[in-house]
């Protein structure tokens, strides 16, 4: 395998006694779109700033396109950044903003105007070239910020929660647009977000971050269907989670006693181990088919447009969530139903430590 385009090894950063980044390794391929997904304070923005050169790691190395850049100042890195608040220059027009990087790098005068107009048309902002930044809406500013960052032809584009200030409809449109633009330009991109839907929609791969570490790095489908840690299970998508104890193990299949009843799951745990069982809501079938079938009482049905979210409570106290296309006729809160799912769809983890479970 060839060396990664961007290779981060052992990056750590502390502020005082708080460790924000704890030995992160990340390899990104050329033209890949990677999301750093995690809650606030997980270190994703710190990692982004280290890559951009706006911050120096305490330990670790950053290599871009075969060159070590760990301590190189940002203006000599060739890395574009789209900031969360866009950070457009308020004293310049839209076109001047896009031209800023080209001028700063001393691009030949006669190439600047064509490049600017090419990137403005790429983000569909040509009509606004001479406008003041203050006259633009949030979505338009966002497009200008992308055009400005891409116009200098960076090796790598970093995006720090660029859609967080936009309303939902616009955000979804911009997500699709940004993917199209990046494919056209062929730029490698790292995208920081706390929005799992955004990460699942846009990324080639997602790095789920938690407490300064990368919990899981995988394709969106793998992250969703095979989260490797309880945190990834919890943070990406919805799930039912049941604490339990392994009662028997047989050739890679364990039986776990949970408050909802005994369930079978693929895994290798010695009997007596405390574990956490997880199931995605769309994997649970109403009426009960599959290896795992339990009885539970409907407590609530939440209408969500295309789907209905059904909340159940097992007799012993376990809670489960099911997503269906429509609520079965005549189902009222209080009625008991059998729920079933396949053994292969059952996710199994060592029980998280107390503090993590809290």
């Amino acid at each position: 395998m060839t060396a990664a385009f961007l290779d981060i090894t052992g990056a750590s950063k502390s502020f005082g006694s708080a460790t924000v980044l704890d030995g992160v390794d990340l390899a990104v391929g050329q033209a890949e779109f990677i999301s750093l997904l995690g809650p606030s304070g997980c270190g994703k923005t710190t990692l982004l700033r280290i890559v951009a050169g706006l911050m120096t790691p305490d330990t670790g190395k950053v290599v871009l396109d075969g060159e070590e850049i760990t301590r190189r100042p940002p203006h000599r890195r060739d890395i574009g950044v789209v900031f969360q608040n866009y950070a457009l220059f308020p004293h310049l027009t839209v076109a001047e903003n896009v031209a800023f990087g080209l001028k700063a790098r001393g691009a030949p005068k006669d190439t600047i105007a064509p490049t600017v107009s090419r990137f403005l048309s790429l983000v569909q902002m040509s009509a606004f070239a001479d406008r003041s930044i203050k006259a633009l809406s949030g979505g338009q500013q966002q497009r200008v910020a992308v055009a400005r960052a891409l116009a200098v032809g960076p090796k790598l584009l970093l995006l720090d929660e660029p859609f967080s200030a936009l309303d939902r409809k616009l955000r979804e449109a911009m997500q699709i647009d940004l993917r199209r633009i990046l494919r056209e330009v062929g730029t490698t991109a790292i995208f920081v977000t706390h929005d799992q839907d955004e990460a699942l929609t846009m990324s080639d791969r997602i790095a789920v971050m938690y407490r300064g570490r990368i919990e899981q790095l995988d394709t969106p489908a793998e992250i969703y269907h095979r989260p490797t840690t309880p945190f990834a299970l919890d943070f990406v998508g919805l799930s039912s989670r049941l604490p339990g104890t392994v009662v028997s193990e047989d050739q890679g299949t364990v039986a776990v006693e949970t408050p909802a009843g005994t369930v079978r799951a693929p895994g290798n745990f010695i009997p007596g181990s405390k574990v956490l069982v997880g199931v995605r809501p769309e994997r649970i079938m109403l009426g009960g088919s599959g290896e795992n079938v339990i009885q539970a009482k409907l407590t609530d049905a939440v209408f969500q447009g295309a789907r209905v979210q059904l909340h159940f409570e097992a007799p012993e106290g376990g809670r489960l969530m099911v997503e269906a296309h429509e609520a079965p006729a005549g189902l009222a809160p209080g009625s008991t139903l059998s729920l079933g799912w396949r053994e292969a769809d059952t996710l199994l983890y060592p029980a998280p430590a107390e503090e993590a479970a809290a």
Partner: protein
Amino acid sequence: MSAARRLDPVLLLAAPAVLYLAIVYGLPLLFLLGRSLFGAGGLASFGSFFADPFSWIVLGNTLRSAALVTLVCLVIGYPTALVLARAGGLVQAAILVAIILPLSVGVVVKAFAWQIVLRRDGIVSQIMTGIGLWSEPQRLLFTETGLVIGAANIFVPFMILPIYSVLKLVDPRLGEAAATLGASPVYRFFKVALPLSLPGIVTGIAFVFSMAASMYVIPSLVIGDRFQTLATLTGRSFLFMRNEQLGSTTAVVLLALTVAIVVASSWLSRRLGGAS
């Protein structure tokens, strides 16, 4: 509600200040204007003022010393404001105290202090001869250089504070964005920080220039009578020469000068501010 037509009751809060200024400032100003225009010489006194070559020397002294003081304040004040805006917590508080506290020391006291510092055997002269830059002790006191140094010291807070208050509001992400676009620190300063702080610079220049053009105590103590400015000439006219016509004429010329500077700079500041 038809509030647009009715007087906003909040405006009444300004009444004490308006009344005060009208009585202690507006009225005397009117008297002064009236005397300069309709006094003994009337408008002709302006004609004779501008016909006198000595008036032009005074005018030149006033404008030149004020411009030099402003320049020195800008050169010293801008970097200080930049540091102040970037500093955090205790450092910022310490610098602010260091800038604001000296304002509580009277101008007379500071001017006297500069008399001591700028003497032939003063500390400046001793240092310059000590490090060999001057071959023999020199007196800066009673020179225009001494005046500019002393006045700049007294007025520099009025340059720092407006620039600082504008710089403080400039998003630090803008500098970072410029850096990631490939702009060197120098390019960043001239294309981002400087243009965005122009409104503060204009305000600072207006403050310092108008104060330096009308300073009276500092030139009286640091340079003496042989260097006349509009302000010292006004004072002399009233106090020593008993020439109220000349005094009110020079006072009005000085007033017109400073009003023009303040109006022009606030217009410029609004225009530049509008662009940011």
